[in-house]
């Protein structure tokens, strides 16, 4: 926590610079479609009082919660199995690569064709967006567990099940949590993109609606609220990560893990 507090002044400073630049540009350029920073703030306040926003957030987050829960329930065990049993990798590698490199927006039409325009396809998209981060990081987590710990456990009579529960799972936890945090970011992205591109519903639908009506301030306010939600969720994930994996900061084991928090 001390680190967070130490960084806070810098974050406030850069945010103030950003807000000032935005406000100045909006005033210099003027026009209906570019509200200033303060006007956006006012619009955000106003929008928060609208039941329409809360309905949209509810709709969107349904897909987020369901889709991300599925991503975790499938992704963590799958990643751990892939990390432990290398032969499985031969089957999974190509699919993981596809998931990693495909522009996900491109498969939205397919998903919609398969599952219709409803909660199912929005949920599926959130899962597809986020699961790869969860799998890849869980797999890396298991791989980076020191093999001598497995040997040690075996020397004290551990069976495969105990090696999983006492060595591999706790050892992989920091990386799994990193995957959860990165996956969450992608899940929010997926949630909004599907609503913007195919299924006009939820907060994405709200953006489209305000854009169609040329209502710039509430449009901006919606985006601010989506960003705020994303930041909140990721901070919560980071907080959990710190709480659960305090030990990993006493060792250098995860210094080279992609996306690990400092």
């Amino acid at each position, binding site marked *: 926590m001390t680190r967070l507090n130490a960084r806070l002044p810098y974050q406030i400073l850069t945010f103030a610079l950003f807000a000032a630049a935005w406000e100045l540009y909006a005033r210099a350029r003027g026009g209906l479609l570019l509200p200033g920073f303060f006007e956006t703030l006012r619009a955000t306040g106003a929008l928060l009082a609208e039941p329409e926003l809360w309905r949209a957030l509810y709709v969107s987050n349904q897909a987020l919660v369901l889709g991300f829960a599925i991503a975790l329930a499938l992704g963590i065990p799958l990643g751990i199995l892939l990390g432990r049993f290398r032969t499985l990798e031969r089957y999974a590698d190509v699919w993981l690569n596809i998931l990693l490199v495909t522009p996900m927006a491109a498969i939205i039409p397919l998903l919609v064709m398969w599952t219709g325009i409803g909660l199912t396809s929005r949920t599926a998209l959130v899962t597809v967006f986020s699961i790869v981060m969860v799998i890849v990081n869980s797999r890396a987590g298991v791989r980076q567990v*020191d093999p*001598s*710990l497995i*040997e*040690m*456990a*075996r*020397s*004290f*009579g*551990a069976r495969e099940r*105990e090696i999983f529960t*006492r*060595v591999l799972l*706790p*050892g992989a*936890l920091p990386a799994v949590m990193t995957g959860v945090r990165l996956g969450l970011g992608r899940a929010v992205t997926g949630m909004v993109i599907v609503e913007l591109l195919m299924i006009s519903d939820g907060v994405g639908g709200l953006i489209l609606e305000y854009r169609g009506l040329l209502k710039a301030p509430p449009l901006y306010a919606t985006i601010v609220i989506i960003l705020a939600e994303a930041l909140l969720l990721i901070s919560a994930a980071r907080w959990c990560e710190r709480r659960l*994996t305090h*030990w*990993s900061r*006493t*060792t250098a*084991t995860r210094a080279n893990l992609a996306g690990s928090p400092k």
Partner: protein
Amino acid sequence: MIEIHGLSKTFTDRRGDTVTALDDARLDVAENEFLTLLGPSGCGKTTLLKCIAGLVPYDSGTIEIDGRPIQGPGPDRAMVFQNFALLPWASVVDNVAFGLRLRGVARAEREERARELVATMGLAGFEKKLPGELSGGMQQRVGIARALAVQPQVLLMDEPFGAVDEQTRRLLQEELLALWEEQRPTVVFVTHSMEEAVLLGDRVALMSARPGRVAELVPVDLPRPRARGGGPDRSGVYAELTAYLWDRLREMHEEHRTVRTGAPA
């Protein structure tokens, strides 16, 4: 106590070549004996130890402990690792209690026994610390305590002091000697140091590489207890033995070099 006959073990390396680690190795270790295994690097001494631990399957031969052939790891043996192999997320007490936990000892009992051993190893006050917060020497004390916690008949130690600095090593050697002289477990101790082999062992089993087998058993005729007053007199028998062991090891290294350069490319 431990009887090893005709033990052979080959590995396949990354390029698919067959490497003979042990070839018809034989060794007997007596009850309550402190045996040190010394040899040039790559002679298979760690492999031999891991075979005794039941961690590495061997191709042929037998390993018996009190007449029973070993089948995998067992509660009669506990191992101490060169790199400590402590669980980085578990406290000192939980690490020491790890073997007991795997053996289904109830929480209260295993914690009590772990705390006693933590105190024996001079780590009182560090019970709740994580391994990453300890120095290398302290970490290995935890590793030794973890092995002692399961009350093994045989303590297998794989270059346990190889990863700590010279001064810490001296301290740990003296502590181990004091501990052994009090409790007299059977110990097989792998080392690459002639001095360590002589200082600690009742006998030194000198291993040769290619073939990996015990080339010679050297009795160490130094009085015990050796732990007190900074260890035994380092002149006399001690100096003679380490010099003799180095002569033998150097011969092995030279033979190895001739074999290498003499072989057709």
